[in-house]
């Protein structure tokens, strides 16, 4: 029986990565989804990297103890061609606009090798903050950065 749980930020990051990975695997083949930036370079392209890069915390109302959290995600696409880059970006935006399940992730105390999840809400995009090609100029054909794309989203959990 799981008896330790991950806090909200980690659960949101994992839930978002899980949702994107599941959607990609259901519609595409051969695409790896990772959570840390440098690990994207260890995988065979195409790779999608989903990272929680910043958080905003504020009081929901003056003098209230309820907090309002906004989570800033960056989704890096490492594609094998320009067409694939555009297709993946459009697919992800189309998926993200509809919101996705928030899970609370738990594990046995002292052993986080197996995570269990239970749906406890939804996550929704408040704003698409970026959606553009990352152009480094002339890059070698073997460079994983050749067809890079960056999508930024600000996410909020349903209360």
């Amino acid at each position, binding site marked *: 029986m799981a008896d330790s749980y991950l806090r909200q930020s980690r659960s949101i990051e994992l839930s978002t990565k899980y949702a994107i990975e599941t959607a990609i695997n259901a519609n595409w083949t051969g695409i790896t989804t990772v959570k840390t930036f*440098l690990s994207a370079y260890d995988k065979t392209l195409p790779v999608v990297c989903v990272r929680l*890069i910043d958080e*905003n915390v504020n009081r929901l109302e003056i003098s209230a103890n309820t907090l309002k959290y906004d989570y800033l995600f960056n989704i890096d696409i490492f594609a094998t061609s320009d067409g694939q880059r555009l297709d993946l970006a459009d697919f992800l935006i189309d998926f993200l606009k509809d919101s996705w399940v928030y899970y609370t992730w738990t594990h046995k105390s002292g052993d986080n090798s197996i995570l269990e999840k239970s749906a406890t809400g939804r996550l929704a995009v408040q704003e698409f*903050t970026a959606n553009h090609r990352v152009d*480094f100029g002339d890059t070698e054909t073997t460079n994983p950065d050749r067809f*890079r794309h960056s999508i930024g989203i*600000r996410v909020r959990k349903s209360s």
Partner: protein
Amino acid sequence: MAVSVSAKVTRTGPSIDELMTNVKLLQALSVKELDRLAKQVSSDFRYYINHSRHRPGQYNKNSLANAFTDSGVVVLPDGSVSVGIGNIAELDANYKYWKFVNYGGTPPRTMGYFGHGEPPDPGLAGVGTQVFHHRSAASAPFAGPGGKTSYLLTPGPIRAMNYIEKVTNKLTIRWGNLREKYFSTLQK
């Protein structure tokens, strides 16, 4: 039979003159506030870059962290106000690595020479006693007087710092707070 009706309209709140005074006051305040906001954003760039750097000991006033200065508020002929933070042309010219630091990735090799361009002394590897002279394609030759060209290569991909995204995120909060403050001013 004609009926004469008279009506008296009583309006409450500030007069037109008072409203105009408030609008002028808000415009003056917004220029001041925007100027302050621009300086805060510039400071945010310094903060995020300096707090994410891997070699925090090496501060330099010409570093990337100090490159995002504000241009100063400009009032345009139509009355709108504008301010710029950083300059992409300047970044491309003087801080070619700005994109790699922000987005992460593998930068191309940098060509130039060490010291006077003598062949490298293996005993000095990693010691860093010789200055590297960067040479771009426009400023060739790549080799120094000693005739030796060197390449600087990053050992692996650079981790994405995403300082632009973080500053933009912070700006959204600051802008929201500013709007809230002005709306509450207008409602008084």
